[in-house]
């Protein structure tokens, strides 16, 4: 299957690969996986006092579409407030990366990772 140019770009030059200290109270970590394809995705955010995401990192073991989806997600999350970040939809990610129907679930995984990271952060801060 042919990947779109954007997927290849993110796959070859992934943005924001890495790890933040999960113990840091300002860091939220989302860990999600897709059992059928074995993908594992970790997405982390560091939130400043103004409630803005000042850094985001990811590490994904999976196919090119899963890597590209999470790479794009971190790019889009930076500079956004938590509420704004939670509005990022898998359909927007899939559209931006021109994912074929069989790879839509990769973008769903990225959206679920965003939500999990935000939830983890809010949980740490006693917001939920």
């Amino acid at each position: 299957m042919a990947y779109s140019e954007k997927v290849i770009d993110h796959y070859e030059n992934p943005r924001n690969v890495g790890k933040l200290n999960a113990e840091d109270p300002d860091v939220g970590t989302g860990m999600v996986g897709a059992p059928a394809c074995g993908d594992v995705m970790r997405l982390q955010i560091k939130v400043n006092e103004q409630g803005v995401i000042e850094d985001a990192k990811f590490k994904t073991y999976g196919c090119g579409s899963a890597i590209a989806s999470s790479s794009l997600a971190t790019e889009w999350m930076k500079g956004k407030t938590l509420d704004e970040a939670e509005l990022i939809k898998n359909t927007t990610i899939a559209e931006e990366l021109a994912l074929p129907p069989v790879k839509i679930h990769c973008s769903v995984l990225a959206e679920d990772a965003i939500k999990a990271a935000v939830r983890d952060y809010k949980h740490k801060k006693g917001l939920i």
Partner: protein
Amino acid sequence: MGTPCHFALFDLQPGFRIDLEQLAVRYRELARATHPDRFADAPASEQRIALERAAGLNEAYRTLKNAPQRARYLLAIRGHELPLEVTVQDPQFLLQQMQWREELEELQDEADLAGVAVFKRRLKAAQEALEESFAASWEDPAQREESERLVRRMQFLDKLSQEVRQLEERLDD
């Protein structure tokens, strides 16, 4: 469903612990009997039926041979169908999966075949432990959630073992 249960096709009782040897023997017998070549001179309608039966047989064999697929099928025939594409949030397990994948990456970078062998043994042990837990829990409706979690974990380890096999092949070349 209209089609006979995969287990019945191979004269097996539905269950997680099955005789894989018997499955393979029976599969070969049936595959010979239903092979489309045997129907080369038959009318088109019979050829089509033979083709469908051969495809069904292969599908059934693939499903039963593989532990997570067999587990998922068992839950499905008990009325508990697990969707294929789903996001799981099983933090401790996923964290471990991530660590294992990091290790596998290092083994690949170092072309460490002995290390891969050790990794494989540990993976096999983890798979067997999951299978044992599933065999003990899947028939109990009260443990349905646990059974589902076990199937999901089995699926991850199955994928990982495929990747280990591919890595071995690359390192062997």
